[in-house]
């Protein structure tokens, strides 16, 4: 079975986000980049499938050479090979087209993406890849069972869950639940050593864009907290009603 895990190179969850002087882009100075957490659950799920029934895992990122350490980390965790699509990820539709082209030129049984990346929070690429390839798609996927040529998937929906089945290949937009937090793996020394010699291919991607990021701003800072003494809870209720009009 051939599994493609799409990986986004994203700022660490603890990173302080700053923008360039002209506010046109993220300022990467001092920012540690990681495998997007949503994708990490997907990568670990792929490893579980590989260990249970055998599979070749390819990890893919659309981006410049600076994203290769993130792909190497995925190789160190256990992916077999990596592909970097050398294109500037201008918007989701362009990224999705690049991924579609790669998938069409290769035969994958399962394509796992994170439901979103924690940088641009688009939640667009997985659905677009599935649409371009006319494949079944499960978003917010929190459980996946592969049985031969078909799959059963559990998804979060508003206020509950749904269970779906479909034939492979399929596209998954995954999140925690696909595997648990405790299942996530840290690369060990042997993994890091072998990752250096695993193949990392570079392919050319699509250009163009449908949307333009005009500018970025930071949210306005909150004014200082108004503390209410613990024995005057009624005062909090008054403030919530009269001042903030929340209740």
């Amino acid at each position, binding site marked *: 079975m051939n599994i493609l895990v799409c990986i986004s190179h994203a700022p660490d*969850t603890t990173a302080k*986000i700053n923008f360039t002087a002209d506010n046109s882009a*993220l300022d990467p100075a001092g920012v540690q980049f990681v495998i997007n957490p949503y994708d990490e659950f997907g990568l670990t799920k792929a490893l579980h499938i590989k260990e249970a029934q055998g599979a070749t895992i390819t990890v893919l990122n659309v981006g410049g050479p600076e994203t290769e350490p993130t792909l190497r980390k995925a190789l160190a965790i256990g992916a077999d090979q990596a592909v970097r699509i050398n294109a500037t990820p201008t918007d*989701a*539709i362009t990224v999705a087209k690049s991924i579609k082209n790669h998938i069409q030129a290769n035969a994958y049984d399962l394509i796992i993406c994170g439901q979103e990346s*924690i*940088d*641009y*929070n*688009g*939640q*667009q690429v*997985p*659905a*677009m890849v599935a*649409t*371009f390839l*006319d*494949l*079944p*798609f499960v*978003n*917010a996927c929190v459980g996946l069972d592969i049985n031969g040529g078909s799959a*059963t998937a559990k998804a*979060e*929906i*508003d206020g509950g869950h*749904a*269970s*779906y*089945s*479909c034939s492979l290949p399929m596209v998954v937009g995954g999140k*925690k639940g696909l595997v648990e*937090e*405790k299942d996530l793996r840290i690369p060990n020394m042997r993994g890091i050593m072998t990752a250096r010699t695993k193949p990392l291919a570079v392919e050319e991607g699509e250009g163009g*864009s*449908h*949307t333009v990021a*005009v500018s*970025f*701003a*930071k*949210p306005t800072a*909150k*004014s200082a*907290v*108004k*503390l*209410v*003494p*613990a024995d005057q*809870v*009624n005062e*909090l*209720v008054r403030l*919530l*009603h009269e001042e*903030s009009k*929340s*209740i």
Partner: protein
Amino acid sequence: MIIVFVESWNNQFKKASFEAVSYARSWANTAGCGVRAITSASAENASQLAQYGADEIATLELAQTGAGIGAQLAGLVGDAQGVVVAGTAVGKIVAPTLAALTSGALSTNTTGTPTSTSPVMVERGAFSSKGIETISLNNGLPIISFVPNAIGIKEEAGAGTMTSANAAGADKLTTNEVSVASGKVALPEAEIVVSAGRGLKGPENWGMIEELADVLGAATACSKPVSDIGWRPHSEHVGQTGIQVNPNLYIAVGISGAIQHLAGVSASKTIVAINTDPEAPFFKAADYGIVGDAFEVVPQLIEELRAFKAAN
């Protein structure tokens, strides 16, 4: 014409459904055009969408999955000037499917109505609420998926002409089961959220959190550590890698306020933090705070709120 997809469940609209029509109306007013609502609700039920600004209301049988609905909408957009979709679980699939099929220009996680109409520009949340992006939808059909609760529902009469529509779009998934908890407020679109963390010491202490939520008509939520150790289900985990919420009121009980948690809640209009530790980072993000023991403060708060609700 601005087209709005209006989601319904068993012929019932959600709050976000009406908000979607209000969003479309606001956009159409700036663009100087009409609003066409597309829904699978019955014509009788759908007619109420006129109250929120729908000029034309087209009803049709819709597919079961977001991908199927997106394909149907692609056949219905015609020469529309824009499309609005609420960012619900279904909407989050509908919008990118539609954008892929129409080569559209999509903004998701949108937090406000267009600030310009030629080209269409909107603000959206990025970097998990640590940033606000202004995006221009300059190449292709502008499609906007907004965060539920972002603009609220506004009543404004539309012409409300009823029509029926036809469009093909097949589901590629077989739906085996759908289970939705009845009587509970769904977290992503809740107006009030009561959330608790490790400060509660154990899952057996969540009774008072549920009671507080009940008094307020709120949804319950939790911090990441609490869902990781299994005290609460993952579906309640609010934060950077969980659900991102933007209610009118977010009450955090016994949550320290790690940067990853704050990323998921900082869009809330009013934040209340209750924590024993006066140095808890949550107090820097909160509007109101009580430094105190949750086991003493929360029962009092329930009592005070009951008295308030009885009097108002």
